[in-house]
């Protein structure tokens, strides 16, 4: 174990059951990765349901997917990717000791994440207005007002749409809460190149949430967009 110069600020952040800061950071990082592994399997169950039902009802899924707004979806994806960049830059700023930049990039991440959620809220409202929420008033229709192909099975698509994006959005809301906490800590100067583990670990979480969306976008928005007759 390499010994680092004794930094009173650092040693006060090493918990008593760890030998040193390096072990603590290493253990925390492994812990976050194991947590993300559980999240992969958690979302995985929903991807399985999607996989099964898309295979079973391809026409219904295509019709329902065409009712999502392609440009809004792509733009929102872009927003989320931007937030991943700003988050990565926030972590980098902590690693090079630029406290003010940490706050800046965290705030940008917050704004971009908030924008994503706002757009999702708009989309959900739009689905409500168009009677695409599974339940009593469900009525799937295309742009021309005609009933969707294989309309009887379209509720499955929308159930998965709300389930998967809803779970994703919940993770983002939790993330937004944590960013607020990190901003508060960063403004107090809590993070240094020697210790900025919460920022790093949260960065991992945020990027994971981005990855989930990277898969959700094509699966939910991009089915059969060519409009070619089948």
């Amino acid at each position: 174990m390499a010994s680092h110069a004794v930094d009173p600020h650092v040693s006060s952040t090493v918990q008593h059951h760890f030998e040193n800061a390096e072990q603590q950071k290493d253990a925390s990082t492994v812990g976050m990765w194991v947590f993300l592994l559980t999240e992969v399997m958690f979302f995985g169950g929903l991807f399985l349901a999607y996989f099964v039902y898309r295979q079973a009802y391809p026409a219904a899924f295509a019709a329902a997917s065409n009712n999502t707004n392609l440009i809004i979806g792509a733009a929102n994806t872009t927003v989320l990717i931007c937030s991943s960049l700003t988050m990565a830059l926030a972590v980098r700023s902590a690693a090079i000791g630029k406290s003010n930049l940490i706050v800046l990039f965290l705030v940008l991440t917050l704004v971009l994440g908030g924008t994503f959620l706002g757009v999702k809220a708009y989309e959900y409202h739009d689905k409500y207005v168009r009677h695409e929420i599974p339940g009593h008033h469900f009525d799937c229709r295309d742009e021309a007002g005609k009933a969707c192909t294989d309309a009887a099975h379209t509720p499955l698509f929308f159930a998965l749409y709300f389930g998967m994006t809803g779970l994703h959005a919940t993770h983002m809301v939790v993330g937004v809460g944590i960013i607020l906490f990190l901003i508060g800590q960063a403004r107090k100067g809590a993070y240094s190149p020697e210790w900025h583990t919460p920022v790093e670990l949260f960065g991992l979480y945020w990027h994971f949430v981005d990855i989930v969306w990277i898969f959700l976008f094509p699966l939910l928005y991009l089915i059969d967009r060519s409009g070619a007759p089948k």
Partner: protein
Amino acid sequence: MANHSGHAGPHVVPKLLYFAVFLALIVLTWVTTGVSTVDLGRWNIFVALAIAIVKASLVVLFFMHVWYSTRLTKMIVAASIFWLILLLFLTMADIWTRQMMGVPGR
């Protein structure tokens, strides 16, 4: 006892690399959007997923620093991919073979 090949202090990824990855992600997002409007028949889904996998890999390797990380981290990432594939494909092994017997209901 930390036993990964230690480096003094945190590793810092060059800003340029982050921006390059970012650019690639944006480009790929709009590529996948555009490709989806082209009729490739049954290949649309494969292309879309392939692009998504490339994007996800870029995020994992560079934004999440897995390229620079310990063997244990890489194993955990590999395990999560492997087990997800297991969940999906072993279940589909049932669904895909249900009609194969040629007997009604089997």
